């Protein structure tokens, strides 16, 4: 059938649906739904990791293989450093930039290395906003509780408490740097309600929150003349005789040469794993989201936490083909956008947590109430025209300019026609285990942002990622700068790698891959 003919059911049922309220699931129903339909519970996609700090723990096959993978570095590489820093930051997204600015501000000599350009990251794409409890009727404690509920009570309490308590001062810092958060008429910060939150708490810059923050942070990194190493992919860390982290080896992607950087402290801010396309899912992630930091930290002996759980954002585009996997911001649902199956029915409270909404969409599709595209994809409708119907013509254009433009480029007017969506691989809930200063169990190795684990439990709440980046970027930067003042540069060796290789050999060197991946292999090799 023609897509417009199929969309008619959404238009026809709109008025009836507007009056309808759908209750959230009870905790028991919610658990049952998730266990049955959420990809985290597809046992065949998982296997135990064979060796290393998380030996025996289960994770998705794609990640397990990379974690057990071999380093591209030979044992006898010349480790004479090309450069040295007090604090070496690997990753140029939100956490990396925040870490760099704070470490630099604390007087450290900083090098920020990134495999693409400064700022190329998922952070830049964050549309929904940043959760900070600034409203009078809200509090950091309520923020804590909401996040805990979203994370299935598995969140690390200490990490979560510092995040929600540092939030307001982070907002202040960003405002002082010139970030233009949306305001109320009285000048106070405007807050929106996000999925899974009991109070409106999302600070936004229209639907460009991540872009606005990153424009400012990138500009500030350049203004502060922080030393950059762009198109430099970290391929191995360095350790001293005691196993403390002492630097990293990079591959310059322009000329394939190795660059050795000695550092008193290293902060990994390498982001997530969307481009591993686990379980065959499309992804909303940027080009470099290949989990490099997890592999590097794992070989150094850092323990990982919650690496069996991933977030599938409920609304990834399924149509047109060119936008597959691209995000349709949760903001649409925050403002009343409804999810509708092929029969014209709603099937979930759209503001439930992401794992619940995603599981419900998968249920509708698996039970035959989805809409199929001829390329074999399936999805449900997100009733975007409802926003204009509800809040007045022009609402979408005003509140979601980025999304309007994205679809308009393919001849689709989302203020007139609903969009077809299905869950897309969005976020790694877990990562390298850290403490409240972002330190791992490996001395002088820090991890900040999506690459770290524990904070979000088994499901990250919308809007908590941007805050995570800023809070733990800051904490890692300040702590690392503090450490660096009181220590000498350690020796550069590859002893951790020799140990890792010995263990891999004991287990038969079965992985067969070189890690980190650096970039996904999208280039067609034949034809």
């Amino acid at each position, binding site marked *: 059938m023609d897509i417009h003919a199929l969309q008619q059911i959404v238009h026809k049922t709109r008025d009836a649906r507007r009056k309808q309220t759908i209750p959230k699931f009870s905790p028991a129903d919610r658990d049952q739904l998730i266990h049955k339909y959420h990809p985290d519970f597809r046992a065949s996609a998982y296997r135990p990791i064979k060796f290393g700090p998380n030996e025996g723990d289960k994770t998705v096959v794609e990640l397990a293989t990379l974690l057990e993978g071999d380093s591209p570095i030979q044992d006898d590489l010349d480790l004479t450093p090309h450069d040295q820093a007090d604090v070496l930051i690997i990753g140029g997204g939100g956490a990396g930039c925040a870490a760099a600015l704070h470490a630099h501000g604390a007087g450290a000599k900083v090098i920020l290395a990134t495999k693409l350009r400064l700022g190329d990251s998922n952070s830049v794409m964050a549309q929904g906003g940043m959760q900070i409890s600034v409203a009078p009727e809200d509090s950091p404690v309520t923020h804590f509780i909401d996040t805990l509920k979203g994370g299935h009570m598995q969140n690390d309490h200490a990490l979560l408490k510092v995040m929600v308590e540092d939030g307001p001062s982070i907002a202040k810092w960003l405002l002082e740097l010139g970030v*233009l958060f949306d305001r109320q008429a009285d000048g106070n910060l405007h807050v929106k309600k996000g999925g899974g939150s009991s109070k409106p708490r999302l600070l936004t810059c229209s639907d460009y929150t991540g872009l606005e923050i990153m424009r400012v942070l990138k500009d500030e990194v350049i203004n502060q003349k922080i030393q950059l190493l762009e198109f430099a992919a970290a391929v191995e860390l360095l350790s001293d005789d005691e196993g403390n982290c002492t630097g990293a080896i990079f591959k310059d992607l322009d000329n394939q040469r190795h660059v050795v950087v000695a550092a008193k402290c290293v902060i990994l801010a390498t982001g997530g794993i969307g481009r591993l396309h686990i379980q065959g899912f499309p992804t909303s992630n940027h080009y470099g989201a290949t989990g490099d930091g997890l592999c590097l930290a794992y070989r150094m002996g850092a323990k990982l936490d919650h690496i069996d759980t991933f977030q599938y954002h409920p609304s990834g585009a399924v149509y047109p083909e060119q936008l597959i996997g691209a995000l349709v911001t949760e903001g649409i649902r925050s403002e009343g956008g409804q999810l509708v199956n092929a029969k014209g029915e709603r099937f979930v409270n759209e503001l439930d947590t992401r794992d619940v909404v995603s599981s419900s969409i998968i249920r509708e599709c698996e039970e035959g109430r989805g809409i199929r595209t001829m390329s074999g994809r399936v999805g449900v409708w997100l009733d975007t025209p409802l926003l204009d119907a509800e809040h007045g013509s022009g609402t979408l254009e005003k509140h979601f300019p980025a999304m309007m433009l994205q679809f308009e480029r393919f001849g689709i007017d989302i203020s007139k026609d609903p969009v077809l969506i299905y869950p897309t691989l969005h976020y790694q809930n877990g990562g390298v285990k850290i403490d409240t200063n972002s330190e791992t169990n490996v001395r002088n190795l820090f991890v900040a942002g999506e690459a770290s684990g524990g904070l979000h439990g088994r499901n990250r709440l919308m809007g908590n990622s941007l805050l995570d980046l800023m809070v733990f970027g800051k904490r890692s930067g300040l702590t690392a700068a503090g450490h660096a003042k009181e220590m000498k540069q350690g020796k550069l060796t590859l002893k951790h790698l020799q140990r890792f290789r010995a263990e891999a050999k004991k287990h038969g060197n079965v992985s067969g891959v070189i890690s980190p991946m650096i970039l996904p292999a999208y280039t067609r090799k034949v034809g």
Partner: protein
Amino acid sequence: MAQESTENVIDQPEVLKPRMVTIEIAGKKVDVPEGITVIKAMWYAGIDVVRGVGCLGGFCGACATYYRTKDDPKVRTCLACQTAVQDGMSFTMMPPFPARKATYEIQTLQDPKQDLFNFYPEAPLCRNCNACTEACPQRIDVREGVWKAVFGDFKSVSEMFMDCVMCGMCTPVCIADIAPNLVALYVSRAQGAHFSEQAVGLDTRIKEIQEGRFNDEWNKILKMNDQELAEHCATVK
């Protein structure tokens, strides 16, 4: 598993049997499936892309590209991850352009509107050719923005350039050597840091946290066992 039904299937035969189109990538002719994005066409043609791909979502500006459609002399601009190829299209990616970015300490500026002319003395030299506006893949009225910046209307500039992905395609076309995106970035940051209202509620909240206003509540919650905490959580709606 999914039940097969034909009634809820969107017609999209071109996806099942992709029609091939001939395009030119940096002057070289290749055949690729119609309708894939410019970036995917490069991958399809066997080109490894390192510089020129970023977020793949239309936000980072890494994939700035010049293109021309069949028989049209007009060279246009696009983001390669957000544009579909069509038969006869010819494109090449924009190399990094050596625009000059001023450096400044945004928080300590004394007179940000006047300082604009110190940091970007070329900004008032706009000759109104409108090439920057035509070059903007985000449809920002860039020329208008540059004039508003020069006349001190920083608020309008900050609103107009909220969509700016910093791809920099407005810069090579400027005959007055202005980098409009960098001018707008300075202006937007100055607007935020110097000309925006005080967020009073935020300051109150920071003070409340510093003064330990929530300590009792924290003490209560952090002492709870798992069961108590779960019950407490269920009461927050």
